[in-house]
């Protein structure tokens, strides 16, 4: 058992937690999107939700973290414990050893705020703690405004303490302004089914495939990143695209449209390291030649 001071010392050298979470060295893209930090998970289906949730849980348990899960007790959902067990995660042992804990919603969202939940977990000696809940479940005990406040507080916790959070939003209900608001409270990263967006010091790192079906998510994360750049006085936003396997015309249009106002102020959008076919499509539709857009370091 480590004391709290010891935990902090350990944490300051701990590269996987919130301190190092998904933040690339300047000029170098992360190789894989991580499961650390404050993340928005957009799920298309129950199967999709569970698969990625299990990866997130496994990652936390492998790292010796405490995993807290909000038990929404939705009768339509199969037991999370059964599912994790089926994925080869020894939730029995983890639960017995206090490494994995199912919390009722009222305990997961106490009236004093979630800081006490984090404190308790860290006091138990864990180097880090991670929490996850479904938004739909949270909204059965919280008003939308209260939930937004919790998200903002969670973002602060993830930035300042060894905390990660995976906030599960259903894709079909998270569209338009709801999507924009959700993305705004998760500046570190968004995990959609086919692509991931992760914050970097100078902008965003994109992995995966973006097409007409998820271009609205791209527009939301790009819009949030551009707004943040504007308000922090930066002249450029960097999009690291080396991890993009596919980018269609609709996605190019989303990039162009979302960044138009930003670029019209004289600021620049850098498209960095796209694979050859992606770079070619972007050139063909005029994105790379648009005012304020620069293609940097093309094909591998």
């Amino acid at each position, binding site marked *: 058992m480590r004391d709290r001071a010891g935990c902090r010392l350990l944490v300051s050298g701990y590269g996987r937690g919130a301190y190092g979470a998904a933040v690339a060295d300047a000029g170098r893209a992360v190789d894989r999107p991580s499961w650390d930090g404050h993340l928005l998970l957009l799920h*298309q289906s129950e199967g999709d939700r569970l698969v990625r949730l299990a990866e997130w849980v496994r990652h936390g348990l492998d790292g010796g973290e405490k995993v807290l899960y909000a038990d929404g007790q939705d009768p339509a959902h199969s037991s999370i414990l059964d599912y994790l067990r089926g994925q080869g995660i020894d939730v029995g042992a983890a639960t017995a050893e206090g490494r994995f804990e199912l919390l009722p919603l009222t305990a997961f969202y106490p009236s004093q705020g979630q800081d006490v939940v984090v404190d308790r977990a860290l006091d138990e000696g864990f180097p880090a703690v991670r929490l996850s809940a479904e938004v739909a479940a949270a909204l059965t005990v919280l008003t939308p405004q209260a939930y937004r406040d919790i998200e903002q507080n969670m973002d602060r916790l993830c930035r300042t303490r060894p905390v990660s959070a995976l906030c599960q939003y259903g894709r079909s209900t998270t569209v338009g302004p709801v999507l924009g608001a959700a993305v705004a409270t998760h500046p570190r990263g968004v995990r959609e089914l*086919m692509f991931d967006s992760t914050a970097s010091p100078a902008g965003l790192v994109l992995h995966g*495939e973006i*097409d*007409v*079906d998820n271009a609205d998510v791209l527009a939301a994360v790009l819009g949030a990143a551009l707004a943040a750049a504007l308000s922090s006085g930066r002249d450029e936003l960097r999009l690291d695209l080396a991890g993009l396997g*596919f980018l*269609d*015309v*609709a996605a*190019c*249009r989303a990039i*162009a*449209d979302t960044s*138009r106002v930003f670029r019209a102020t004289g600021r620049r959008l850098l498209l960095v390291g796209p694979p050859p*076919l992606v*770079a*070619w*499509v*972007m*050139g*063909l*539709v*005029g*994105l*790379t*030649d*648009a005012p304020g857009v620069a*293609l940097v370091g093309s094909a591998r």
Partner: protein
Amino acid sequence: MTAGAGGGGGYLHHALFYDSPQALVGAAGPFLRAGLAAGDLPVLVCSDRNNALLTAALRGEAEVVVLEPASIYTRVVDAVDRYQRLVRAQRRRGTHRVRLVGEVDFGPPPMWDEWTRFEAIVNLALAPYPLSSVCAYDTRTLPTPILKAARTTHPNLLTSAGAEPNPGYRHPVTVLRALPPDPPDPLEATPPRFADDLTAPADLTRLRRKLRTALTTAGVPTSVMDDVVVAAHEICTNGLIHGRPPVLVRVWTSADRVHCTITDQGTGHNQSLAGYLPPPTPVRTGAGLWVTRNLVDRVSSTHTTDGFVVRLTTQALNGGGHIQRRPPHDSDGEGWSPGTWEAREG
């Protein structure tokens, strides 16, 4: 025809009908020599024999650029692009106007209409370019349909008496609308190698993944496979967003080609120029078909009782038969742009 950007006017497009080497030289020779006197650069894109004849007619007075038609006339959009780059490159070297005499390579009969489309489209695509071109048509050897079409696609005629307006010229939209869509490929009578029905944009990921697998299994070269997957994706997107689901995708492969039909249940469109010209920047609607025409050899669409059918066909030869994707950037550096043009169709 039109005075375009770039100083000294825009594109002048002539047809020259000849029935002997003397007739060719008799008309093209003065054209080229007048160009030399004006400081224009001569460019020849004819058969080897005619390139030699015309070079001789210039009496060694000047630098002549000589190109092989086969290197230019691959795909319509690529041929247009090559001429645009040629003129821009010569401009950077200080040439004010390019004077070109060429013979379009019409290829095998299935491609004749497509190169007629090329002849029509250049009137729009090259309009702002300081280029005077003469398309030489051998009336002894070229089929009648090609000769007839040539009379509708050139605003000017060139003879030994000089250039004169061509009363037979028709607007490119009129010419394209008069051309029939491609007939079904014989492969369509056989079982497809790949089939998928899409009902929503969420199905596009599955389409790409499964089509990639099917084409890889069929031994299609990777670059061709990548191009076909992107092209099919964009056409399916059009069908889902602008047409009506379900969108039915069927793909066949043979030793030399990949052929797709993509059918949606909507009424389609009648924009015959669609995808032959780049959409105006910034990126707007209509770019999907432009990208597709740059990825595969042939795109043709038609309304049928089954719905709106788009046919994609591209070579799939192993060992370099595939047309290389052209570089997306011509490092122009200068502010002079090809200009925009508005081709409105009713």
